[in-house]
């Protein structure tokens, strides 16, 4: 099967669509694979987008910019707006975790390492944004990625131990429903 080459202008739109939702900087190779386009074409699209957002393609100089960081490309706030954005982030960040976040954190603590779909299965809700909050707060972190499914598994951090005032996750009280199915989550190495 041969694929039609994507017109440069369409490719630019696809690249910016992907970059708008991507959490991490994306390498040209990753973008090319995902978009089914050759790397040089993707490079040109990225370069044109950089110029475009910088206001060098006839449009305005955007409030955001496309920057290469650590071998990948990501959309960032343009530094001249840092102050406004900082103010916004300050007012938007609650100092307490929501009930949903606490419950999700408890699930991770007792069942770690655990993937997002596994957490969602226990909580029976979508947990994407809550997991993001917990990672952002440094309470959980990525442990490893399952090589087969590509699912990221999460574990708790030392910061959580500090917050709970305990020395290790084994010091958490045991939980009855976990004990019932024969393993309490802590007996793994026993």
């Amino acid at each position: 099967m041969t694929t039609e080459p994507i017109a440069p202008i369409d490719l630019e739109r696809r690249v910016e669509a992907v970059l708008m939702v991507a959490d991490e900087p994306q390498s040209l190779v990753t973008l090319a694979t995902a978009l089914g386009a050759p790397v040089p074409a993707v490079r040109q699209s990225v370069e044109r987008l950089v110029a475009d957002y910088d206001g060098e393609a006839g449009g305005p100089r955007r409030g955001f910019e496309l920057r290469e960081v650590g071998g990948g490309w990501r959309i960032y706030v343009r530094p001249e707006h840092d102050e406004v954005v900082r103010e916004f982030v300050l007012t938007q960040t609650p100092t307490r975790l929501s009930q949903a976040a606490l419950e999700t954190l408890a699930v991770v603590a007792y069942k770690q390492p655990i993937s997002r779909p596994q957490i969602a299965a226990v909580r029976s809700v979508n947990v994407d944004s809550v997991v993001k909050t917990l990672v952002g707060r440094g309470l959980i972190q990525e442990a490893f990625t399952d090589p087969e499914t590509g699912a990221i598994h999460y574990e708790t951090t030392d910061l959580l131990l500090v917050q709970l005032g305990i020395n290790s996750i084994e010091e958490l009280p045991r939980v009855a429903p976990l004990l019932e199915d024969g393993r309490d989550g802590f007996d793994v190495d026993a």
Partner: protein
Amino acid sequence: MRTAGTAEQDALHEAAAERPSGDGAFSITLENFDGPFDLLLRLIAKHELDITEVALSAVTDEFIRYVRALDGAEQLDRASEFLVVAATLLDMKIVGLLPQGELVDAEDVAALEARDLLFARLLQYRAFKLASQWFGTRFDQETGRHWRSVRLEDRFRRQTPDLVWTTSPEDFAALAALAFAPKAIPVVGLEHLHAPLVSIREQAAEVAALLRRGEPLTFRQLIAGVEQKGVIVARFLAVLELYRGAAVSFEQLEPLGELTVRWTAEHWSDDALANLGADYDN
């Protein structure tokens, strides 16, 4: 005669999954089935009747046959859900059999009013069923959409206010227990009987406990020591509900005489209390 929209009708036909049973009688599988209104809608769709059409006797027959088929012990509580609808349909059928023209007595008027009420509720039920299709479509559409919700840039993250942490390890464990607890715990649905009201279900449980010792008791004995009028009324209604559920029988030698109640259920499970008295929930 008008018929409902064909697309919806097809859907209803599919969902109904009708099949002739061994004795040739009509039957409907219980799968994906949602109460008396649902059954009624499916029967109406099957006969391609407008739901405002009075010639519902065929539907009524099938409905009543279905309710009769519910008569198994495990279906008793379900059957009670159907009684009001079934009774209304029967009334309508009687009116339908009468010579057309003048309405002769109040009973017929009442039957017609009951019919209107039934139609109104059926229309409402159907309207929300259709509205739910819109919900389903929108949910599906939006599930495929992606929005920007990315991890905060490090330079901003460092600026966020510190977390105020007030959760002890014990609270934390309790949260975990809550999250891991099975979601659909089978409970007796007492919740929609609210605090100041007397629960017919609870009273039924009392009555069942008293009678299941074996000895028949008079109603007077059943309410011995009870002073609140509301509780006495609820206990009486509970007895009627248990009778409706074929769990007890009555003996009354003369009108207004002593009422003796006897436990007759052979297979009784307290689960049967779950839906008992549901008609009184409003």
